């Protein structure tokens, strides 16, 4: 790298400790250009400064034009008209506090917006309702500057009061908000304050370098609503700051939106959005094929093969960290012996499973939640492959050469029943006779507390985990000794301390070093089998372009239309 030191110094002046740390990591070659952009945007370095630094380090021109929306098919979409979107029926009322399902979170982001946007195509966090943000030295206090002149759909101007209200409500344990899964131990209502009308300050319970991630669109509940909003009746108005305004919402049936002429982001292309809810995927595919919808938001391969192999449709692909965890009870014989758990993990032919269930839309998992998309993932950890001879050896070493019978509990959801059957056949190869219990989701989760839930109590349990931008949630609840979703009943002090260090680590190289340790530990202990990660997929008609989707089910259509 030929560096322009003078320019660099200039750009570095006034940067916080955290920001300078990221710049150092980049300069010393610890992180790549792409990861520098990603990390830099998280800690609050603005895009012009980031590209300035890249320019100062030489040859930056190519970097800023990273991949655009995957759906863009050459020419630009036209303004006007109606877009019809097939989605799933929201599982419950559209209450920003409690929404926890695909259908519901899709609805939230039609009119609701976030402080920062997690761009699924570039993996960068971008300004949305906040224009810039800054952390103090250790990442324990974060200050966000709000975008001026943003208006809610009821005409009111957004101020820091509204943002503070939204955050206080979402982080209040009394409200049982879904966002507590992120905020517990991180943010309480008293930590949110507004120094002035355009600034919001967060004092965290524990420092983290990832805070903007955690309140970005990734945290799908965290839309900004007007001060004093009654969340339980939000469904009637959908008041937000976004590019669209609610026309009509009918539970179980669908919703229509019209464009917001005063949107801060400029022109909104579609005049109208028509969301139509379907109970399952099959009618969505049929509707796309018959031309009665333009977009199917989030589809899985099973049953949609006809769309995937047809040039009349675009498939929007978002690599993601969504996966399935097959847990084995580490506290119950015979899975108390880690050799038995390892043996089970060795029976799976992962590439074959991915091909059968996802074709090319899946990535190998290595029995830890560190997905290939996470920058902190240590890719030098050796991949586990099918090895029946080794598995049999391990079984006999563990005194289980005769095999045993056990029970696997799981849910009816997407490809899981098929995957469970594959697991059963795989286990049979080394004498593990697995009885499947494929249950409705309500029955499987039960009360979701230990002793009252097939999910958490089963000897083996196969559960779904949706996409997260950072692995923190995956590493905590399902794996730490005190974790609330620890279906494997895995209790390992070394792991617990590694986890704590990982979360507190502010710079990427430390994170990656700790990730490597965690990955190796989990591979050895094998409390969980994670055979694959798979992409978030959506489909549109060939003529539709500009739709931005996320692996979680959000869809942003302000710039979408027919070519």
């Amino acid at each position: 790298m030929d560096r322009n030191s003078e320019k660099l110094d200039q750009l570095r002046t006034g940067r916080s400790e955290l920001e300078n740390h990221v710049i150092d990591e980049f300069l010393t070659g610890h992180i790549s250009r792409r990861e520098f952009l990603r990390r830099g945007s998280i800690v609050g370095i603005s895009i012009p400064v980031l590209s300035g630094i890249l320019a100062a380090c030489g040859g930056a021109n190519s970097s800023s034009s990273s991949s655009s929306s995957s759906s863009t098919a050459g020419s630009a979409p036209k303004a006007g008209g109606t877009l019809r979107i097939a989605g799933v029926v929201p599982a419950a009322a559209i209450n920003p506090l409690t929404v926890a399902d695909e259908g519901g979170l899709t609805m939230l982001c039609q009119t609701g917006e976030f402080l920062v946007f997690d761009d699924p195509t570039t993996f960068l966090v971008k300004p949305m309702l906040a224009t810039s943000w800054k952390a103090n030295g250790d990442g324990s206090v974060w200050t966000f500057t709000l975008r001026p002149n943003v208006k809610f759909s009821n005409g009111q101007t957004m101020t820091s009061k509204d943002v503070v209200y939204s955050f206080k409500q979402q982080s209040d344990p009394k409200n049982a908000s879904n966002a507590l899964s992120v905020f517990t131990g991180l943010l309480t209502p008293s930590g949110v304050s507004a120094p002035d009308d355009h600034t919001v300050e967060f004092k965290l319970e524990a420092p983290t370098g990832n805070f903007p991630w955690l309140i970005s669109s990734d945290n799908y509940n965290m839309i900004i609503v007007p001060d004093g909003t009654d969340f339980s009746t939000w469904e009637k108005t959908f008041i937000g700051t976004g590019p669209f305004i609610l026309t009509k919402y009918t539970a179980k049936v669908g919703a229509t939106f019209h464009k917001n002429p005063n949107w801060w982001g400029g022109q909104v292309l579609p005049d109208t959005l028509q969301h139509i809810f379907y109970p399952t995927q099959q009618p969505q595919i049929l509707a796309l094929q018959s031309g009665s919808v333009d977009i199917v938001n989030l589809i899985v391969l099973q049953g949609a093969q006809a769309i995937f192999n047809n040039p009349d449709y675009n498939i929007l692909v978002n690599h993601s960290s969504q996966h399935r965890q097959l847990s084995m009870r580490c506290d119950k014989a015979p899975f108390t012996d880690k050799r038995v758990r390892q043996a089970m993990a060795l029976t799976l032919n992962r590439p074959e499973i991915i091909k059968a269930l996802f074709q090319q839309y899946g990535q190998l998992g290595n029995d830890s939640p560190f997905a290939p998309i996470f920058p902190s993932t240590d890719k030098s950890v050796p991949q586990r492959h099918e090895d029946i001879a080794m598995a049999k050896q391990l079984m006999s070493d563990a005194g289980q050469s005769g095999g045993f019978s056990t029970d696997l509990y799981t849910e009816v959801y997407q490809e899981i029943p098929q995957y469970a059957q594959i697991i059963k056949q795989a286990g049979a190869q080394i004498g593990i006779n697995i009885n499947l219990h494929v249950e409705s989701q309500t029955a499987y989760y039960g009360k979701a507390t230990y002793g009252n839930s097939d999910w958490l109590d089963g000897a083996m349990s196969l559960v779904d985990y949706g996409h997260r931008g950072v692995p923190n949630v995956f590493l905590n609840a399902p794996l730490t000794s005190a974790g609330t979703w620890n279906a494997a009943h895995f209790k390992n002090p070394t792991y617990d301390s590694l986890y704590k260090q990982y979360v507190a680590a502010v710079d990427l190289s430390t994170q990656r070093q700790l990730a490597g340790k965690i990955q190796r530990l989990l591979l050895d202990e094998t409390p969980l089998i994670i055979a694959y990660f798979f992409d978030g997929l959506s489909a549109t008609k060939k003529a539709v372009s500009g739709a931005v989707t996320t692996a979680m089910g959000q869809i942003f259509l302000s710039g979408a239309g027919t070519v």
Partner: protein
Amino acid sequence: MGLALITLWILSVIVFLAGQLLPGDPGRAILGPLAEQRAVTTLDHQLGVDKPLITQYWNWLTGILHGDLGTSYTYQQPIRPFITTALWNSLKLAAVAFLMCVPLAILAGVLAALNVGSWKDRSISVVGLSALALPEFVSGVFLAIIFGIWLNVLPLDATPPPGASPATVVYHLILPAIPLTLVLFGYIMRMARAGTVAALEADYTRTAVLKGLPRSTVVRRHVLRNSLLPTITVVATQVGYLIGGLVVVENMFHYQGIGALVFTAANSKDFPMLEAGVLTIGVVYLLATLVADISYTLLNPRLRLGGAE
């Protein structure tokens, strides 16, 4: 009528108790597996599901008597609009099924009766018997593959795009309606055949023949009139049966009717919705049976005359 009310009351108790046995926890079902336990407990308290059973039942019953079906756990909205929409959808589907099936079935039954013992009679009987015996989802599979996939002439999706014309609505309902129709077809066809056979052998028919009237006139004036009335009456009793078939067909073709509503409510432990849905089905069934009973009694003397021993 009084008996029907007692029946309904017993039904409400049975459904209520069955609802209590459903696995899972209402608060948990609403908030999802990831919610905190204290939030679930709070919500359970708000919903009143931590109160004694008898209190819960009483609250619910008094609500119903005041026309309040309660609030859905899942959607946290009043249940009534869901039930009316679903019932209306199901009625549309049932109407299409009835209109397709009844005329054809009666025609086939009369044709078989006029040719008792011939190959026509036998083949119609065998077809009717098979139609009657096939579960709806089995005939549904055949029809979906033949008309939806191979010939690609009927939409597999029972729900038309929003704002569709009535003709399109009916077009989308044809495929799901046929499996419902088939079972009814077999039944009504048998009824029509038996009724016509009996009428053909009745005294008034013989008298007419003896009077020298042409066969076609006899059939038109005496036989059809006397055989079809009871058949049509009995068709009314099938409304309740049709609703049972709707559960399967609506799930299969993803149609948001009362059957799909009950099925979904049972799976998501939306107990107030389940109870309201099941009771609605019970009421519709009892009403239909009542209507059928009354008209049957009115027409019965003549029938007995025809089939006297």
